[in-house]
């Protein structure tokens, strides 16, 4: 017989089963696909050297993100991540917006990954000599299968991500070693590097896709209610994830820019796979194809996990209908949120062009990073060090926050150069959503219940 009603004091929560390796797999798994495809559009914007500058500038931006995120998340350990942080530190309206940024960023990224996987299968079909092959069945299957996996339980989902991500990262390292970077046998940077063909404007423009090297690493904190030791696991998983990505990004740039001219690299669909083809090694080609597929799957898988946690948290606080705040009694997953977001991802993956989907994801992420820089300054001012227990304290405050704010401003300009209409459309959407929340939805929120942290009164209040 199963229990079907709540008795006094009993409740169902998300399952605390994850360790630091799962957190690493969640963060790196979402992002690593950016090394296999997407980052190279930065080369098209400003040349290979500009892409390297963008890689390191974006790396600095994301190091600031990871440091800030680690401190705040180790203190506000709740599903919803930055949404829950914004609620406690800034206020409900900011939290509602941040929740939407998260859901958009991850759902769009999931759709982009599904489109990519469909394209890869379609390419294999075409190369095998089949006529009239379609990508749509595989796009839908990717989303359905990974949603089903997420529905069934977080442990299996993120253990799969760990395996997929480890193999994909190993593929990048093996390719780097196989090109013998200590010799000039294969890599020929002197022939292919041509400075800055579009000058420093090209460097700024390339920042748009430079974010693709790391976009999503901040998703680690969505696992806060499912890790066994949030104060230890989240900073550890996030920081090691960031180090992994900096290494992978630099290796990727070095191999690709030494094997291909920037005119080709800047518009290639699968640059790392193309690099493997240029080495002439069949095992490397297979490995990098597998790495591309695995990284895409891992990214979509992590995105479903993160988007559903953000949506679930908003439902739990009544920012959205409470129906979304339910936990599956057997699987211990936010099952209604997972199912609800499936058609959203399918619609975008089915009908929207890839570059638009990617841009909406980047823009949502960028809005989230801008919030994070302001959030941490407010956090330190309201709750100075030693007033509440922090699992991690990031150094040099407020320098990382100011650097992050500056880099976000530059990147907005970079996005505006290429996708100004989308940027303005997105701003209008969030403004309208904010008005809806303020004038309509907030009256349903139980104002006292949403603040769950046992913190002292903020300084100055």
């Amino acid at each position, binding site marked *: 017989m199963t229990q079907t009603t709540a008795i006094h004091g009993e409740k*169902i929560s998300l399952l605390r089963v994850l360790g630091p390796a799962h957190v690493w797999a969640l963060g790196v798994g979402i992002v690593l696909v950016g090394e296999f495809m997407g980052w190279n559009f930065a080369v098209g914007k400003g040349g290979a050297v500009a892409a390297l500058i963008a890689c390191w500038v974006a790396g600095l931006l994301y190091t600031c993100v990871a440091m800030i995120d680690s401190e705040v998340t180790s203190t506000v350990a709740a599903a919803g991540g930055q949404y829950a942080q914004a609620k406690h530190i800034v206020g409900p309206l900011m939290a509602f917006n941040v929740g939407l940024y998260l859901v958009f960023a991850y759902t769009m990224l999931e759709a982009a990954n599904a489109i990519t996987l469909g394209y890869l299968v379609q390419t294999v079909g075409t190369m095998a000599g089949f006529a009239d092959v379609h990508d749509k069945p595989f796009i839908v299957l990717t989303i359905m299968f990974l949603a089903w996996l997420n529905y069934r339980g977080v442990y299996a989902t993120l253990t799969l991500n760990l395996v997929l991500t480890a193999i994909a990262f190993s593929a990048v390292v093996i390719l780097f070693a196989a090109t013998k970077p200590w010799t000039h046998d294969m890599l020929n940077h002197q022939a292919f590097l041509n400075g800055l063909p579009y000058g420093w404007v090209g460097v700024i423009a390339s920042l748009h896709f430079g974010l693709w090297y790391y976009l999503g690493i901040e998703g680690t904190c969505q696992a806060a209610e499912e890790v066994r030791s949030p104060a230890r696991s989240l900073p550890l998983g996030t920081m090691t994830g960031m180090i992994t990505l900096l290494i992978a990004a630099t290796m990727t740039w070095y191999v690709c820019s030494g094997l291909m001219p920037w005119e080709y690299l800047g518009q290639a669909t699968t640059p790392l796979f193309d690099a493997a083809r240029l080495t002439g090694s069949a095992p490397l080609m297979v490995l990098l194809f597998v790495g591309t597929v695995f990284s895409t799957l891992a990214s979509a898988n992590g995105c479903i996990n993160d988007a559903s946690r953000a949506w679930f948290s908003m439902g739990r606080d009544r920012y959205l209908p409470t129906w979304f705040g339910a936990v599956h009694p057997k699987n211990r997953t936010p099952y209604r949120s997972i199912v609800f977001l499936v058609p959203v991802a399918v619609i975008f993956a089915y009908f929207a062009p890839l570059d638009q989907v990617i841009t909406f994801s980047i823009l949502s992420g960028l809005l989230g990073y801008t919030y994070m820089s302001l959030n941490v300054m407010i956090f330190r001012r309201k709750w100075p060090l030693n007033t509440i227990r922090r699992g991690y304290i990031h150094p040099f405050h407020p320098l990382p926050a100011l650097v992050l704010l500056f880099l976000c401003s530059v990147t907005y300009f970079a996005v505006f150069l290429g996708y100004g209409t989308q940027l303005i459309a997105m701003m209008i959407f969030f403004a309208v959503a904010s008005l809806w929340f303020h004038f309509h939805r907030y009256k349903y929120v139980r104002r006292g219940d949403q603040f769950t942290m046992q913190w002292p009164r903020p300084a100055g209040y």
Partner: protein
Amino acid sequence: MNQFQMLEYAAWALSAVLGLWMLLDMIKTNRTYDEDLLTSSKEGQIDDALVIDPPHQGGHK
């Protein structure tokens, strides 16, 4: 019909099965359990003594 087209149909069929599986399980779960129990999760609370796993602990209707 070539082999790739069969693969495409298999992908559509598997997608439909997985989608229906989730949908039916969601409906079944919604009907079986009390709404208060399903939405009883609280943000950031770590109190294992109170967290239950109904199917594994037995209980009552």
